[in-house]
Structures are given as C-alpha cells and as structure tokens.
C-alpha cells in the first residue's frame, strides 16, 4: 500500500479523474442545453389531476402540462405551510403549467403529491397558443360568429375540429396581412413623412432665400398631404381587416367548468396533443422549430420566435467581417513580411496578442466613448444636422457594434494569419524573388494564396467569438426589441445606424429581465441551443477548412 502511494500511481488516477470530470462537464453542459432546448418544441401532453387537500378535504382539479418534479425534505414542506403526513421524510412536488393566465392569475403552479390522484390525459383537450397571456388549456364548446354560437361541438362532432383549424388559418392570414400593412406600408409612409420634416429643417439650415425656402416648404407640404391621403386609405383598409378578424370567437370550457370566449384574432395555433399520434407530434415538432427560427417574438420576447435576433447577429457579424478581414490580414502581413524584426516589432506583436486577453467590456467602454460619443457625435454634427437633437450615429447602433467587435477580434485574425504566413517556407519566397518578381508580386501571387487557410481560420474564429460576445454589445448597440431589421427594401438597404437584436443579449434579457422567468425558461434554453449550435458549427468549419486547405497546399509548398 505504502509502496503503491510512493510509486505515485494514485495521483495518476487523480489527474485522470480531472480529465474525466472536465470532459463530463463539457458533455453534460452541451447535453443539458440540447435536451432542454430541443424538448421545448415537443407538443407536451396535457395532464389532468385531482388533488384532495388533506387538511380541508377540498378537491382541486388541475389541468396543464407537467413541467418537472422535485424532491424536498418534509421540514421545508411543512415550513412552507403544507400538510405533511407523519413519518414521511421526503416529499415530491410537481410544477404544472396550467396556462390560462388571464383567468387564473398565475400560469405556473407547484403542488405536493399528497392527496394527488393518478395523472390522466383526457381526450379532446385544446392547447391554444395565444398572442397574449400565454397558452390556454381547455375543452372546446362552440364556435361563435358575431357573438352568436353557430356550431357546437356536440352538434358538429368530428368536423368541429376541422372548422376550428380553418378559422385559425384564416385568422393567421388576416394577421399577416395586417402586419404587412402596418409594418410595410404605414411604416414606409411614416419614414417618408419624417424624411420630409428633416428636409424642411435642412432647408432652413442651408440658409436659402425666403422664396426658395417657401418653395421647398410648399413642395414638401404637398407631398405630405399626398402621404396623409395614402395613409387614410390604408387606415380604412386596416379597420376593415381588424373588424373581419375579430368576428369569430371560440367558446372554451376550463377544467373548473368556467366558460371563456376567446377571439380567433388572439389565436396563433391550436393543437390537441392528447389526441395526436407520434407522427403528427413529430410534424408539429418540426413545425414549431421552424416557427421558432423564423418567427417574431411576442409577449416581451418570452414567446414566439427569435428571427430578428438571428438576423441581427448575422448582419452584425457580416459587417464586422468586412471591416476586420482586410485590416487584420494587412497588419499581419506587415508584421511578418515588412516590419524589421527587432525588439519594437516583438513588443508590438506581444501587445497585439495580448489584446485578445483584454476583457471584452473594456472594448465596449472604448466603443461607447470613442466611437459613439466622439465619432458618432461629430458625424451627426456634420452630416445629420437636420435631425439633431435626436442622434443618428451618436447613439448605439449596428455600425458601432460591428466596429467594436472588429477591434475585439482583430488579434484573432492577425494571430491566425501570421501563423499561416510563418508556415510558408522561405524557399518559396526566395524562389519567387529569384525569378525577378517584385516583393509585392511575390506576396500577392505566391505567399498570400498559400496563407489563405490561416486567414480563413482566423476569420471564422473571429466570427465565432463575435457571435457569442455580449458584454460590449450591451453598451454599443444591442436592444431587447428592435422595431425594424437592419436590412430591408428601402434605400440604402443596409441601415448601419439602426439598433439590432442579438442572440446572446436575447438570452440575457429574456432569462434575467423578464417578469415571468418560468414561462421564459424553455425559450432561453432554445435560444441558447441555437447560439451554441451556430458557434460550434462555425468552429468546426474553421477546423475543417484549416485541415482541408492545409492538405491542399501542403503539396504546393513542399
């Protein structure tokens, strides 16, 4: 035994244990996110359970999705004011998502197992996804039109569900056209009217003569009237659509027997999870994933999709790449090919490498102070005088966020490119120079193409880092809800001054700033899963490109 300890074998096992633990933690973390994230989309069965209160004897019937179970000690349960049978040390409690927040006040509810009946899964339950107040769980009673019941479930039988689905589809279509008008046409008119106002102001600032000024004002006023008229037409159209959409309603019965009318305008989707086959559920599952990736957020971001966040992240990273790639690559070439390799260059190189270790929030502070307040403020004063005092570039936005991240990821690109350049044998360079090529010809025709893998890797790693960075973005341009996407059909198509949504910030905001954490939790996991997937894919791509190109150029360079 003593010998065994002396040989050090146990310590080898201990170090091995550290590896096991680290790898298991990585796997566990990714697994946790994957399981929680993916399960969010599965249409969960709706449970019905009867609970007899052991102290009062009252019966309570609950219906909803079973979220999770937890074991607590009897002491804690008793202190929380619950009845605990004598002799029981541990209690299980269940978290139900009973939905119907507008009726019951709280949509998540904990119940102890004491007095709880078997879980039942009644047929015919509707899970209604609503635009407000979260899910509704209940049994359908009748379809109403203009306040009158037109079809009841008892009369129509199976065809009732079909009718309901048709009405849902109709209401979703209405909703889509309303949004198209509100966001598209009316938004455009508003922006044009704002542009006219700025035009007026600009004319005043330009110091035109009285008559010129009057002419500008008159033409703007005329254009404004036209737009107003156009707006009126759209407004009427909208009113009609709204009236149509609100015509139909659905009478539902909650588990406690209370009947509730839900307008179809409020309904996003209706499913009957307890009646669905596994195949139907699978279809619904992929449909939900699609909706999540392409939909707009609802209910203060706690429901709906995350499309604007994905779009914002990608746009920002794209703009950043355009800025960081040339700058980083050129700087790396300078350091490796042109700079005199002395102590100064060495110092610069160390400094650049160390920039990668500087906390990202510092870049955010620099971005806010220098880019936004200093550069942005001056740009506004020079080019957007008419819009002042409301800032155009002197406020956080896409461009500044991208620029800050470009600075943040610059070392990543430089380091990778330098590594790529260092790997090229000097014989190749000398060969090219010996053939009479100038230094720049050698560089651009021979060296740089060979170093492409390094550059690509650097760029992809930079993108992966930028996509996951949140702290600096909180200061320089990310918001919880952006009204418009940074790219749209309006000139100049890419709007660098707009604020954007971002996946990472979305996680922070929904997980930590939303009032209903329990409701937001699954969505946060799903968003996290999306972000992790994006970053892991980017990193794997970087690795495979590097390996692939390395192989490809190995034969050339040898």
């Amino acid at each position, binding site marked *: 035994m003593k010998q*065994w300890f002396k*040989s*050090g*074998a*146990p310590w080898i096992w*201990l*170090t*091995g*244990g*550290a*590896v*096991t633990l*680290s*790898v298991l933690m*990585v*796997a566990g973390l990714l697994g946790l996110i994957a399981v929680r994230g993916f399960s969010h989309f599965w249409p969960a069965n709706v449970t019905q359970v009867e609970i007899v209160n052991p102290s009062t004897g009252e019966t309570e019937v609950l219906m909803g999705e079973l979220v999770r179970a937890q074991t607590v*000690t009897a*002491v804690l349960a008793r202190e929380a004011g619950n009845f605990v049978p004598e002799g029981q*040390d*541990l209690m299980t409690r269940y978290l139900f998502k009973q939905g119907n927040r507008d009726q019951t006040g709280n949509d998540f509810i904990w119940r102890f197992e004491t007095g709880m009946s078997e879980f039942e899964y009644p047929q015919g339950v509707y899970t209604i996804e609503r635009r407000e107040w979260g899910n509704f769980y209940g049994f359908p009673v009748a379809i109403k039109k203009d306040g009158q019941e037109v079809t009841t479930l008892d009369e129509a039988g199976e065809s009732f569900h079909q009718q309901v689905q048709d009405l849902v589809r109709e209401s979703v279509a209405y909703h889509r056209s309303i949004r198209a008008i509100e966001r598209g046409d009316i938004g455009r008119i508003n922006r044009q009217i704002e542009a006219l106002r700025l035009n007026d102001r600009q004319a005043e600032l330009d110091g035109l003569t009285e008559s010129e000024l009057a002419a500008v004002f008159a033409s703007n006023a005329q254009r404004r009237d036209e737009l107003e008229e156009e707006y009126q037409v759209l407004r009427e159209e909208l009113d009609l659509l709204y009236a149509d959409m609100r015509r139909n309603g659905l009478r539902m019965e909650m588990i406690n027997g209370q009947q509730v009318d839900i307008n179809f305008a409020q309904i996003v989707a209706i499913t009957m999870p307890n009646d669905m086959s596994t195949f139907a559920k699978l279809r619904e599952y992929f449909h939900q994933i699609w909706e999540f990736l392409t939909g707009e957020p609802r209910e203060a971001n706690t429901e709906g999709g995350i499309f604007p966040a994905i779009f914002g992240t990608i746009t920002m990273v794209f703009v950043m790449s355009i800025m960081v790639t040339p700058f980083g690559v*050129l*700087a790396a*070439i*300078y350091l490796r090919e042109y700079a005199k390799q002395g102590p100064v260059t060495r110092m*610069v190189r*160390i*400094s650049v*490498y*160390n*920039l990668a*270790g500087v*906390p990202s*929030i*510092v870049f*955010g*502070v*620099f971005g*806010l102070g*220098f880019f936004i*307040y*200093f550069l942005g403020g001056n740009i506004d004063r020079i080019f957007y005088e008419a819009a002042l005092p409301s800032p155009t570039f002197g406020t956080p936005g896409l461009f500044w966020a991208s620029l800050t991240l470009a600075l943040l990821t610059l070392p990543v690109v430089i380091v990778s490119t330098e590594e790529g350049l260092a790997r090229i044998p000097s014989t190749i360079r000398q060969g090219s120079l010996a053939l009479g090529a100038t*230094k720049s*010809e050698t560089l*651009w025709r021979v060296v740089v193409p060979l170093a492409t893998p390094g550059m690509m890797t650097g760029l992809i*790693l930079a993108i992966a880092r930028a*996509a*996951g*960075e*949140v*702290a600096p973005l*909180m*200061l320089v341009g990310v918001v919880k809800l952006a009204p418009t996407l940074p790219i749209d059909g309006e000139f100049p198509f890419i709007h660098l001054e707009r604020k954007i949504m971002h996946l*990472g910030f979305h*996680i*922070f905001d929904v*997980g*930590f700033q939303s009032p209903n954490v329990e409701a937001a*939790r699954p969505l946060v996991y799903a968003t996290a899963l999306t972000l*992790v997937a994006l970053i892991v894919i980017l990193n794997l791509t970087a*690795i495979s490109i590097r390996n692939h190109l390395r192989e490809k150029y190995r034969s050339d360079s040898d």
Partner: protein
Amino acid sequence: MTESVATPQGRRQASRLPDATVRAKRRRIRTFKDKLSRFGITSAGYGVVFSLALIFIYLFYEVLPILRGATVEATVEYSIPGLAEDATVKHLVMERFQELGVNYASDGLVTFFELPTSEIRFQESITVPDDAEITSFAAAENIGALVSYGLSNGQALILRHEYQLTFPDDVRHITPRIARPYGDSPVQIDADGQSLKMLALQESTRGQRRAMAVAYTDDRRLVAASMTTRANLFTGAVDTQVTRTTLPQMSSEPVQILIDKEFRSVFVADKRGRIHYYDISNFNAPELTHIVDAGRGARITAMEFLVGSVSIIVGTERGELSQWFLVRDDVNEYTLEKIRSFKPHAGAITRISPEYTRKGFIAGDATGKVGIHYGTSSRTLLQKQLHESAIANMAISPVNRGLLTVSENNTLTVSEVWNQHPQISFRALWNRVWYEGRANPEYIWQSSSASDEFESKFSLIPLSVGTLKAAFFAMMFAMPLGIMAAIYTAYFMTPKLRGVVKPTIEIMEALPTVILGFLAGLWLAPFMENNLPAVFSILLGMPIMMLLMALLWRNFPASIRNRVPPGWEAVLLIPIVVVFGWVAVSASPWMEIVFFDGSMRQWLTENGITYDQRNALVVGVAMGFAVIPTIYSIAEDAVFNVPKHLTQGSLALGATPWQTVVGVVLPTASPGIFSAIMIGFGRAVGETMIVLMATGNSPIVNFNIFEGMRTLSANIAVELPETAVGSSHFRILFLAALVLFTFTFILNTIAEVVRQRLRARYSNL
C-alpha cells in the same frame, strides 16, 4: 535556356519581348505597384499599432479630468450696483445661467443686476411696517431661494426670488421677481414682540410646504416658529398658520443658528466656539441635547450646512475648517461628531457657501482668499486670492461654474469656476470614508440615487474585492482541474484519446459566456440551493472516490487489468464519476435531514452565515468552467512540449512515471503552467456576463462563499449605459475600465514573456 544561347540574329527574331520603352514603362508600373503595396500594408500595420495605442490613450484621456483640481478665473470686477451708502450686502445669489446676480442689502433693497455689465435689471424694496426696522437677515438652503428679514417688532418678512424664462425670438430672457410665499404681511416670530437680533430660516422641500424660523431676541431668548401655508382655491390668497415655541436658554451669546430640513435639530454656535445641539423633533418641548466644543479655543466665525442639511461646515477665526454631523451611537442616541477637517485658511473664515447639488463648499477668509473644498473626498481643490480685503459675501452658481465674491469695500468680482470632479480623490476611491448618516467610516459603492441631496459613494474597494473574490473562487475550481487534466492529457493519456479529449475541452473556450452565465443563474444556482449537501459531498468525495477506484483496480485480477492498457484510466473513471454524482444528488435530501435538520440553507442561516441563491460558489463553478479550457490548453502545450529525452532519461534511471512528472516534467514546464494560470486569472478578472448573471451584483466587501459580489466589469455593464456623459461617475467607470485594461494587459504580457523564454529554453535543452 536553349533560346538564350542562340545567335544574336536568332535571338532578335525569336524574341517576344516588347521593346525597351514598353519594358521600362512596365517596370515603372511594377515598381509603382510594389511601392503602393508596401505603403498600403505598412499603413495597415501602423493603423493597428495606432488603434491599440488609441484604446489606452482614449481611456486615459477620459479619466484624466478627475486628476485635475479646480480653477477660478476672475472675469470682471466692479463696485456692487444699487447699494445705498450705509447699507451692506446681506446675501448674494447667482442665477443658474450666470446672467443675473441678486443682492439682498441690509436696508431691505433687493437688486437684480446683470453679471457681465453690472446693469440693474430689476429692483424692489421690501415694505417694512412703519413702527419697525430691519434687525437681522436669514437665508434657507440656497436651492429654495427663501430668505427672511427679521424686524425689531418680533416679526419677519419672508420672501423668495423667482425667475420666469421666456424665449422671444428664440433668445432666452429671464424676468426676475420677488414672491412672498408665506403671505404678504410679516410673520410674527416672537410672541412677545421683541426685536430679532439673529435669525435662522429653513424650508422643507419635500411634501407639504413648511418653513421654520429660529430667532435670538433682544432679551436673550431663543424662539422658534413653524409656518405652514394654505392657499385659498378661489381668491389665491395665502393663509399662514404659525406655531411657536421657546428653546432652552443659552449661557452665551450666539453667532450663528442653523435648522435642518427635517425640522428635527437646531444647531447654535456661540461666542465661545461651542455648538449647542437642540433636539426639536418634539416641537412643543425642545431639548438642549448637548454642547460640543467645536472651536477648540477659537471663535466660530462661519457655520453652514452642506446641501441636504446633514453636515455642518464650521469655520473658525484661526482659519480652520471642519465637517460635523450627527452620528447615531449604540444606544440610538445622536451626538454631533467631527468627521474631517480641511486644509486651513490663513485668515479667519468669513463666509461659507455650499454647492447646490453636491457636498462641496467654497469658503472665503479675512485675507481675501477663497478656498474650494469638498466634503466626501476631504479635498481642498484650490485656494486663491481674489480680493485685497476680507471677503464679505459670496455666491456660487447652481451648476458650480461661477462664483461671485464681495469684499469688505463692496467690490464685486465675477469669476469663472472649473470644478467638475471634486468627489474623486485617491482617498475617496480607496480608503474608508465616513459618509453622512453612517456610524463609521466605510467602504461603499453607491453611485446614484433619485435625490439631489444624495451623497455619491464611490469606493472602488467593494468592486475590487468583488472582482478578486470572483476570480479567486473561479481559480480555486479551475486551477486544480485544468492543470491536473493538462498533465494527464499531455503525459499519460494515449495519443488516440488525446486527439479527442483536447479539442473537446478546447471547444469550451469558444462557448459564449452568456450561456454559462444563464445556466449558472437559472439552473445551477437553484440546483445548488436545493442540493447543497450534494455539492459539498461531490467536491470533497470525488477525489476520494477516484483514489478508491485506483485501489480497487490494483486488486482486480490481472486478466482484466491487462486488457486495458495504461493511459485509459480516465475512461475507467467515467462510470465512477457519473454514479457517485448521481448518488450524491439523490442522497442530498437525506443528508439534509440527518445532518442539517431538514435544510442546509436554513442551517447555515441559523449559524450566522448569510446565504444568497446567486453566490460566489455558483460563480466559482461557472467562471471556473470558462477558465478551465484556457488554463488547460496552455498548460497542456507546456507539458507536452517538454523534450522527450528528459523524461526518457528519467524513466531509464528507474523513476516511476509519476516521479518523472514531479521531478522532471513539472519543473521544466512550470513557467508554462505559471503563464497558463496568469492568463486564466486575467480572463476571470475581466469576465462580465457570468458574474452579471450568476450573482446578485450587490457591492459588498467580504469573502463569504455563500454571498454574491459585484465586479468591476459587471459594474461597468450595469451602470455605464445610465450615467451622464462626462460626469464624475462616468469617468470613474472609465477608470475602472482602464484599471481592468492595464491589469489584464500586464498579466498577459508577463505570461507571454514567460512563455517565450520557455520556448527558447526548450529549444536549447
């Protein structure tokens, strides 16, 4: 080659070269391109160096103003306008746009004059009843602009100056006027109708409009009158109710009386340098609580509240300046205590003028000097000679940008003041500071509040301690795991396995910290709270379980043992780790019942240990998780690159593999491991999102593992979007960023230099 040795004739025929001029042109173009490329690349290189320097320079540039003191520059000087021959200036006010000055003269004439030109804008003489004359004057806190003239018949006239802003032709025009908020007629302060020799006035700015006056009468009594008003809804006439009381007698003549804004205490300085503290919270039965010798043998020549009427600044004939406020002791009784003193003036203090929204003041002395001082930071920013003779009166601009001073011979000087960041000093940032209303000097970070009277508390200690605390616990978790895993992977693990394990752990480095933070806050924190015994049994029991497994494995039959080659121990441990983890979690409630009366959390609380759900333990694990790949990756490289001939030599001499690790590998690789730790530490110090999400962000100063913290970086993320640009708070946050930048930069540079040395050493071995 064959072409070029052909005859001259043949070459001329076969040559496809363009003629000389074209070639020269092409050469010029190529040279130009070469130069252009050199120029472009060089400028990009310089650009990077420049932008790197720019970050540092810009952060420093934003921080620099806090190191500047204050400046006062006299702009104009004239004799005070509209003052009668025998009258003196009783009170001077500067309006916020620094356009107008107000002068309350001793004869009751109120003059509004234009500051740059001394032209009189408006003048009004207050109406004194026929049988009385003006005997005294008092001003309430300057932000309310309420003043009062005390009369010889025991009455007082209460006035307020107001400004109306209009913008005819887009140009600001200020119209001053005098209002009488407590009725047009004088208020009877002394019921006996004795002359008011000395007067003090204060108005409450919160809730119902209420004012209080305390006067010293001709027959040596201290009387107090509390006034409330009610405006008639229809006529607009103001009805003032007055209640009066008499304060206990003083033994000596008073020189200055102060009333606080809560109407709880009255402070009276007497001729012998003592301050009498009266408790008037029970207005009908005021008490003289105690007397403090504030002058220490010197007469008190000036005494004034700082904004908020908590702190008193006392100036003496010897030029000393000190700050006092009421401190609550153990038995809940208030005593007036000296908090700090300021750099003394050369002559007696004649006048103290507090700032409107900060805890600073300007003092004038008998030699004609003014001094700019600040309470919280104990700073004296400037002392400057403005007049030849003693300063008789002063006014400070509400935005601290201007100063009016009047000398004894009625010369008025208008000065421009720059005094943007008096709150900040090295002591205020790093030492204990005695803040208003606190029992002791403390380290507090509390940067803002809704009220103007709030004393900003900018101690960087809580944030620095929080940063170190978070980094410490993260390193406690990450260092052993990262380094041990690195040693095993680099030295013991089979190459095949290493090819899988290393990238797996390294990919963690790319994982966004926001995800770690969110898991820590929403999953790990509640999990730990519910399974505290499991957490501790895993932390303590896991190594023991691993050793037990090793022992067990040694006693396995050789036939099984031989099937697993060395280098696969880590795989064998997977079931152990998983099973033990599962057992620990499921046994957790039972452990709580057996050892902790049913709940470990409550048990901790009962034993006097505060427990927050989002605490340092959670941060330690989550941030440790983020740091492990950094440490692991660098340390693994260092261990792996130890030259093979060294280890082989050691093994050949009969050392066991572990003895080789301890005796040869680790000493050689130690600089690399050191730099791994440095870089990991740098990362933990600067990490923002994890601490932001996994702690309660409360800036506390302790190392309790069950409490949260606020770090420098999280503090920047929380507060920077909400501060006013250019304010002291803004600059302190920049200072925090600069500190983080410099600190991590130095750490990383050390690590990088150590690594480069190591690399050189390896190549020499």
